[in-house]
């Protein structure tokens, strides 16, 4: 007998007295975890197919469904946890690399949770943001060494800048990895909130050109969809060198996801694998990076800031310094917790460093080299809430990108199965019967709401610190204290311990 070693991760509970056999769950589950049994005239479940995305739970009209972990335990073993045992089973049967979606779920230290924010008491009184002006406006781009002012006017033209009403942008997610409805939701929300979304490396769908002034277009190693109209379409161009979820490697969008629309946008044949090589093959040095930056500036007549996105890795400070000297106007640092549509599991879970440490190290390095003003710093890869944003800005960031959080606003339930193309929430899929579940108008409203709520919270906390402009918080590490951190961690973060 040939035993398949796979066991379910979850089990579906159907409260018999509530279930009316309406079969909505059968239609809603693209994983086919619910099935209609014609003989018994009732709905059954196949636990092994369940990914715990809650779609059936939330669409069940009688609330008959719930899901829990499958009640199966291995003999307890602190070293050989179920994860490693089941991984070996999968690889022994397939001979394949393990693939995962979203950011790492490993219990690495979350430094955001070891940083505390200051507030004013008695002196330097706090400010009430509901009744007093509070400035979140952020400009991203190279700042001049000095300002020349004549007759009250700037005498020299500033380098091109992105103007944000709130220091939060939607991170690069490509059409292919996510659906057009998801992209459209983010584009509309960015326009509404005065911020930016990023095309990712999959080109710009023709229907999204109208959101150009709120768009950052990306150029990655595969150069998918990169042509002159595309470069001119956005307000900034981002060169993707690395991604926090998978530093050092490229990406493969499998041919099954390259339907007509994706193929037209990526400018490749339908059904063809979209392979992004690990490196840009015209970049082998900082000088080569400069060459790509300036080829893009030349192609757009120096009218747009050029960002360089790098993954947070061991020598991040030196790398960022090199990128700044190569002519980047904005450096995006993506921490190792950053999300992805698909990444090899072992890479996702073990490569890179936390964004908090990377950001502090880069900001300190650029300041010590007196080139901090030459670039704006944008951080990504684990921003969960408004206080994470505040902490990032106090550590030295100019703005944050949110990817996972933005998708959760659209309905993502973090089941981490983006790579299957069966996203029941219509986000990480190109299947028309699934993508139509996400209405871009509703999605945009939710994504905009998230930014609105976070912006209010940021103002509230800023006011609490007695600060009325976000600019005064940038790199102001005195507004942070560490809790439960070692001397070394405190010194890298550049913050004092609570009580000091």
């Amino acid at each position, binding site marked *: 007998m040939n035993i398949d070693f796979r066991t379910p991760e979850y089990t579906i509970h159907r409260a018999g007295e509530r279930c009316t056999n309406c079969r909505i769950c059968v239609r809603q589950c693209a994983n086919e975890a619910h099935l209609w049994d014609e003989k018994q005239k009732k709905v059954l479940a196949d636990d092994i197919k369940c990914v715990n995305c809650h779609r059936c739970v939330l669409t069940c009209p009688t609330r008959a469904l719930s899901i829990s972990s499958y009640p199966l335990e291995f003999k307890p073993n602190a070293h050989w946890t179920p994860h490693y045992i089941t*991984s070996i089973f*999968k*690889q022994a049967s*397939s001979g*394949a*690399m*393990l*693939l*995962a979606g979203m950011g790492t779920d490993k219990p690495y230290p979350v430094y955001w949770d070891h940083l505390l924010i200051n507030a004013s008491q008695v002196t330097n009184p706090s400010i009430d943001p509901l009744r007093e002006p509070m400035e979140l406006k952020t400009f991203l781009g190279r700042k001049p060494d000095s300002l020349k002012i004549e007759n009250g006017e700037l005498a020299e033209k500033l380098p091109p800048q992105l103007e944000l009403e709130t220091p939060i942008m939607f991170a690069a997610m490509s059409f292919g990895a996510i659906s057009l409805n998801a992209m459209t939701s983010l584009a509309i929300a960015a326009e509404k909130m005065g911020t930016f979304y990023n095309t990712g490396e999959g080109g710009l769908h023709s229907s999204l050109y109208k959101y150009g002034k709120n768009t950052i277009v990306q150029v990655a*190693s*595969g*150069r998918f969809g*990169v*042509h*002159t109209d595309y*470069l001119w379409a956005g307000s900034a161009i981002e060169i993707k060198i690395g991604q926090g979820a998978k530093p050092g490697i490229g990406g*493969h969008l*499998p*041919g099954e996801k390259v339907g007509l629309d994706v193929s037209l946008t990526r*400018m*490749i*044949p339908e*059904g*063809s*694998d979209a*392979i992004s*090589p690990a490196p840009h*093959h*015209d970049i082998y040095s900082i000088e080569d990076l400069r*060459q*790509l930056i*300036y*080829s893009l500036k*030349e*192609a*757009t*007549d120096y009218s747009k800031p050029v960002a360089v996105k790098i993954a947070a890795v061991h020598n991040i400070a030196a790398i960022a310094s090199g990128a700044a000297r190569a002519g980047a106007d904005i450096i995006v640092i993506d921490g190792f917790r950053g999300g992805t549509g*698909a990444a*090899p*599991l072992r890479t996702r879970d073990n490569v890179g460093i936390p964004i908090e440490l990377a950001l502090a190290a880069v900001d300190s390095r650029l300041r010590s080299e007196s080139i901090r003003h030459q670039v704006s710093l944008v951080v990504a890869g684990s921003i969960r809430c408004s206080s994470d944003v505040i902490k990032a800005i106090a550590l030295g960031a100019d703005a944050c990108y949110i990817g996972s959080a933005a998708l959760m606003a659209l309905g993502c339930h973090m089941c*981490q*199965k983006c*790579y*299957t193309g069966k996203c029941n929430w219509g986000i990480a899929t190109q299947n028309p019967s699934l993508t139509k579940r996400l209405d871009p108008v509703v999605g945009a409203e939710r994504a905009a709401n998230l930014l609105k709520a976070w912006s209010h919270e940021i103002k509230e906390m800023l006011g609490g610190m007695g600060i009325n402009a976000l600019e005064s918080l940038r790199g102001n590490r005195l507004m942070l204290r560490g809790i439960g951190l070692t001397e070394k961690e405190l010194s890298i973060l550049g913050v004092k311990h609570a009580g000091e």
Partner: protein
Amino acid sequence: MSRRIDAQGLYYKELNQLVRQAFSEGVTEVVLDNVNGQRYLGDGISSDGSIIIHGTPGNDMAAYMNGLQIVVRGNAQDATGNTMNEGTIVVHGDAGDTVGYAMRGGEIFIKGSVGYRVGIHMKEYLKKNPVIVVGGKAGAFFGEYMAGGILILLGLSGREGYPIVGDYCGTGMHGGVMYIRGQVEEYKLGKEVKIVDMTAEDESVLERYVSRYADYFGCDKEAILAQPFSKLIPFNKRPYGNLYTGV
């Protein structure tokens, strides 16, 4: 309307500004004299005019180019035709590494030899089918990751004692076709490519581009075509299809 610009001593930024300005003023042919390593010539320009370059243009010539015809009376450097969309480049000399990187449309004719990774990640798209014809020899990783288009390598000139193409030819290839004049040793090929027989259709494609090459550089088409070619195509369009399993 033609305009002559002396590039002597001009920084690339000024030179490119002058070129862009010329096209925006309706000039159809720009002639550049004394070009000496200035980068980014013709980058991102959408026009059906032409640029004639006397001298040696720098890296990233014709990047993102969209329709121009560029003739180089000299050698070209690295990343010529990077991510090019449309147009024609004719180089009366050699060219450097990564010629035609991610090129999606248009044609590049190089009279002499080229460096490493030429035609890397070339693609085809709808009616666009990019073509690179190299008259001499090519370095390693020729046509790496190639996803579409046509690479033709003639071996008419080049460094003596060196093979017509370097190692790892077509590694990662998953689309398009290469025609290499003469034999290519198996060990030089990437593991994703195979040599197959030429068809009548292949012969007519070759004839078309070899005659163009012969016309541009004044050589004997028949003599070039007299030697048989090796045709290289990928084993399949999904070289990495079975690499992963979900967790």
